[in-house]
């Protein structure tokens, strides 16, 4: 099936649009969650959405998407509140609080789910799809809800941009300016719960946290300002959402949600490896260069010391002496020093026995060696 054919398929259109919306909202809100070091709060809230999904179903009596999402939002937000109270009122640390809240709410969700499945209600079919998502079941009407939530969240972020930025960076200072920090934090948290609700249908409660965290983490690698990070996270979210959805459509039978998560995770992997200044490769390259430079400096100062020891600025050093002194082949390093104009590979005068050519420091080499030695002395002082 060609891409054009794919995109004209009604179901696939819905899935792709839904995945794009999910990527957009979770990329933007995830950026704030990650920067506020609350990535796992997203995980807790998404797992805690499950009992809400079941309660929504029980109350409505049918698989009505509106009441299911409302239920998910309610228990997700409740979990966040419980978590907040637990850590504020007791001596429980954040990670323990998150862990406990997540497990308790998820366990309640699974119990409710099995209870509903035992009721033999014909309309309960597919409720367990909320565990891992069932993108293909996305309807046009679901898209309107997802789009509405996304629009509200984006509008709030745009309107409260500088407040959210300061609260994420320095909440204490924000309080001293008189900002309602507690309310802004609650708002940010509730919006993450909204993003979770958007993602329930697509990727399910178990994998939703990755959708919040991954685009933000990947974007952080490439950006120097919050503006860039949020825009890039949104872009990464949208692109990997669409990519995952198309991939699953092309390979009939593979689950959409997990494919979306795998797409965004590969973006994270690439970003962690390649990003300038922050990536692994960059770091490895920087270390290699430092080691290289150190080797150069060592050989250069050895030449300098030998010249000084012989009281002869154009003392001719044999290759073998340098190799022995450093315990390794210094030929390559010396060639590079030669290329930089710091050393010369000169002919031995005809009357002197021994190898025909030897190493001599150039005036530039002497200056450089003295500079290196001086800076080493400063560091040791």
């Amino acid at each position, binding site marked *: 099936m060609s891409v054009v054919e794919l995109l004209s398929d009604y179901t696939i259109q819905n899935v792709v649009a839904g995945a794009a919306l999910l990527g957009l909202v979770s990329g933007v809100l995830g950026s704030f969650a990650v*920067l506020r*070091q609350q990535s796992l709060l997203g995980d807790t809230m998404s797992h805690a959405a499950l009992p809400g999904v079941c309660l929504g179903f029980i109350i409505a009596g049918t698989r009505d998407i509106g009441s299911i999402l409302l239920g998910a939002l309610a228990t997700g937000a409740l979990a966040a509140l419980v978590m907040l109270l637990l850590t504020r009122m007791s*001596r429980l640390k954040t990670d323990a609080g998150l862990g406990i809240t997540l497990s308790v709410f998820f366990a309640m969700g699974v119990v409710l789910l099995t209870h509903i499945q035992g009721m033999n209600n014909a309309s309960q079919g597919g409720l367990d799809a909320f565990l891992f998502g069932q993108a293909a079941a996305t309807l046009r009407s679901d898209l309107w809800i997802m789009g509405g939530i996304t629009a509200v969240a984006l509008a709030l972020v745009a*309107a409260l*941009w*500088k*407040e959210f*930025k*300061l609260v*994420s*960076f*320095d909440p*204490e*200072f*924000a*309080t*001293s*300016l*008189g*900002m309602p920090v507690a309310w802004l934090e609650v708002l940010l948290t509730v919006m993450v719960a909204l993003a979770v609700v958007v993602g329930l249908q697509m990727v399910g409660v178990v994998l939703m946290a990755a959708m919040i965290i991954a685009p933000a983490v990947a974007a*952080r690698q490439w*950006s*120097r*300002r*919050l503006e*860039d*990070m949020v825009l890039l996270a949104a872009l990464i979210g949208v692109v990997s959402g669409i990519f995952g959805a198309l991939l699953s459509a092309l390979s009939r039978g593979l689950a959409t949600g997990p494919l979306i998560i795998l797409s965004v995770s590969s973006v994270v992997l690439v970003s962690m490896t390649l990003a300038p200044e922050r990536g692994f490769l960059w770091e490895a390259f920087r270390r290699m260069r430092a080691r290289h430079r150190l080797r150069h400096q060592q050989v250069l100062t050895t030449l300098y010391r030998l010249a000084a020891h012989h009281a002869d600025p154009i003392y001719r050093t044999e290759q073998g002496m340098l190799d022995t002194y450093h315990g390794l082949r210094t030929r390559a390093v010396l060639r590079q020093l030669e290329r930089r104009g710091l050393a010369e590979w000169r002919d031995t005068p005809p009357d002197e026995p021994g190898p025909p050519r030897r190493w001599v420091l150039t005036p530039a080499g002497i200056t450089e060696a003295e500079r290196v030695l001086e800076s080493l002395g400063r560091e040791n002082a």
Partner: protein
Amino acid sequence: MSTTLHEPDLALHVEDLTVSYHSKPVLWDIDFDVPPGVMAAIIGPNGAGKSTLIKSVLGLVPAVAGHVTLHGRPYKAQRRRVGYVPQRSSVDWDFPTTALDVVTMGLYGRLGWLRRPGRRERDEAMAALELVGMADFARRQISQLSGGQQQRVFLARALVQKADVYFLDEPMAGVDATTERAIVDILRRLRDEGKTVIVVHHDLQTVRSYFDWLLILNVRVIAQGPVAEVYTADHLRQAYGGQIALLDQDTFLSEEAAAEAAVRAG
């Protein structure tokens, strides 16, 4: 305003302030006054509640008892007249933002809701960065700055607040000598303009050369007043207990002897 002012002649007036954490007192019955136009230090051993005192004055930590006024009015009414430099370690310096951006944050309070910083705010922030000698680093990502440079950025953020009373939490902790001198120079200039500067300080050696007003704290107030009267071996021993042995006792002894000699001569 028709409301009566409470202690309007004092830049900072703290009365009966008590703060507790997990029902243990961190600050107990603090009475603390600072006149306008001085550079005051708050010193005391670890856990004495120095930072908590500042945070409580600024409403960041709730007090269980007591009241605070700044130039006669409670903090909430005086926010615009207060500048604050938190401890450098209180934020994540890996946050994706630039030095200029951080300084601009000092103007967010004045801007109010929905308004974004524009050209004027950027210019003001730039001027403050110049004042602390960081103009060349304006576009630099804050994670790339050294500790001293980060501290200067924080100071610049407080400077744009154009306040009358400045609170600084350990601004000289872990910074290089150049930065320390730059910070002290700027604080002195503020004081000479008639502003009040209140600093949580950790280095006893420099108290007398930098400051003219002093509070010695250890959960309770040990002593307060002009540095020359308050900075005595006796008060320090009361606050620091055995740790005072670390101090240079000779300076105290020789000074006490000199004072005695002066008294006898007078």
